[in-house]
């Protein structure tokens, strides 16, 4: 026989005797928990989907090819991922506050099924907090934890989303029951308005780091689109990458090519110059438009003679680091917007933006817009 879940009111009463006082608010009820749950479900689904997009753009499986258009697709998905994630912080805290009395339900475990259910809820609660806390730290470039953020955040997402599916299935009947009855009562409406206000305030004060029309309001954003070397933010400086200004720079094109090339800066400047307007869209959520000038990657590759379906590895003068080289798939290197850029916003690239030559391509994470390019290796 299936045991029925303890009504929240009883949980509240139990909670009161257990913790001694408190939990008298009507807002610790099923209806509030269900409504907040629906919004959290939507938010975490969006975060999971956009997070997977970002992961597979950076680590493309051999069978998948990502498009190079629309130009701002990655900017949109990653901006949504980060800003929605930040706005979810008050939402999650409100939900946990609402169901807090259930933490102290007595007896803590009533059956094996009940224990399993509470185990899943623990994975969901701890995992949700973990994702939001580590994400918040990461966008502020603060790494007090021993693990590598990207890998831990990625795998933990599966744990959280799996637990979310089970939890949503368990609570579906309650959610459906609550969805048909409208929410009323002044205290409930005020509570929802407060939560919406808190989430909205967080979104409004951060979204401007990627959504330009709100730029003036981005007072809590870790980045400002126009602030940085040549009016564009920098993620990795030349100093931190250990790259010095090259005295005698050369670009080599090697690998599966008809003729290997060694090009000087003067050679590149002698090729047809193109100007494009493309954003740098960072995995940390900020993005900013800039005007780039240089030669098309496809012009350089065609001069060397490459197959249409070749993949190209773009290598940097940076000696260490996970992102010292990046792979460019056919849709991106065939794209007329993909440049080996020599200029940014009307000036030669500064050292921090990859002097003398960097990759810039549409619909691509910022960490893959390789700087200080020295070699193209065709695979």
């Amino acid at each position: 026989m299936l045991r029925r879940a303890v009504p929240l009111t009883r949980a509240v009463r139990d909670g009161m005797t257990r913790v001694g006082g408190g939990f008298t608010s009507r807002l610790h009820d099923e209806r509030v928990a269900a409504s907040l749950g629906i919004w959290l479900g939507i938010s975490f689904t969006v975060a999971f989907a956009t997070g997977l997009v970002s992961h597979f753009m950076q680590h493309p499986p051999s069978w998948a090819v990502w498009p190079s258009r629309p130009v701002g697709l990655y900017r949109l998905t990653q901006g949504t991922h980060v800003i929605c994630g930040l706005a979810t912080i008050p939402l999650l805290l409100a939900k946990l506050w609402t169901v807090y009395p259930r933490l102290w339900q007595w007896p803590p475990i009533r059956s094996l099924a009940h224990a399993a259910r509470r185990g899943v809820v623990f994975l969901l609660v701890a995992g949700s907090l973990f994702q939001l806390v580590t994400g918040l730290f990461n966008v502020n470039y603060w790494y007090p934890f021993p693990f590598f953020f990207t890998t831990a955040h990625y795998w933990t997402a599966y744990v959280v989303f799996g637990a979310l599916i089970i939890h949503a299935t368990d609570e579906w009947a309650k959610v459906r029951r609550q969805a048909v009855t409208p929410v009323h009562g002044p205290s409930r409406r005020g509570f929802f308005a407060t939560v919406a206000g808190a989430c909205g305030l967080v979104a409004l004060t951060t979204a401007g780091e990627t959504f330009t029309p709100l730029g003036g309001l981005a007072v809590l954003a870790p980045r400002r689109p126009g602030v940085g070397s040549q009016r564009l933010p920098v993620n990795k400086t030349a100093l931190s990458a250990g790259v010095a200004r090259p005295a005698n720079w050369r670009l080599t094109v090697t690998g599966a090519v008809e003729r290997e090339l060694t090009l000087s800066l003067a050679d590149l400047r002698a090729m047809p110059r193109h100007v494009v307007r493309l954003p740098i869209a960072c995995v940390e959520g900020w993005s900013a438009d800039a005007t780039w000038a240089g030669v098309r990657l496809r012009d350089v590759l065609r001069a060397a003679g490459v197959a249409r379906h070749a993949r190209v590895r773009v290598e940097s003068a940076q000696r260490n680091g996970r992102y010292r080289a990046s792979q460019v798939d056919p849709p991106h290197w065939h794209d007329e917007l993909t440049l080996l850029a020599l200029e940014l916003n009307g000036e030669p690239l500064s050292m921090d933006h990859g002097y003398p030559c960097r990759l810039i391509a549409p619909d691509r994470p910022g960490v893959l817009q390789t700087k200080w390019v020295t070699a193209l290796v065709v695979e």
Partner: protein
Amino acid sequence: MWRRLPYVAGAALIGVGLGGLVLHSSDTHPVGWLIWFAGVAVVHDALFAPFVLGMASLAGRAPRPPVVRAGLAVAGAATIVALPAVLAYGRRPDNPSVLPQAYGLHLVTIIGVVTAAVVVVNAYAPPMGKAILTVVGVLLSIWLIFMVIGMIISALKFLIWLGFLAVLGAVIVIVISKMAKST
């Protein structure tokens, strides 16, 4: 069969996640991960939630507890999200484009605006629906005022400088003329 499908899918995803965390242990440091994973839940349940309940019960002594609690919640949310930027451990001497703003000042300003909104609502004591509209209205109008002032300032910067110089000139002339009279 179909009813069990979500449970199977959920369990599979949890398995994939835990498996990935173990397989990539050089990146994920499973022990450190576990400490942080359980740690954030313990910190929330044992410290943060009781702290919030305590603050809410303190707010019960205020003239209109729901309004004060709403203000505390909104200001608290802004504080949590802003805290890593205010502490700014992520700042680097070689990269001024990371965390370029005065986040402490901005946070204090936001808390001030929220406090002002709460005070206004408390002073006029309208019903709840009106109170919420008032808060939203106050926030919007403050934003609008700042926008308009900013636009006027940027448009009239030159004229304002000119006016300032004119006033300065007038003051100097008056002072000199007074000095001339007194001699």
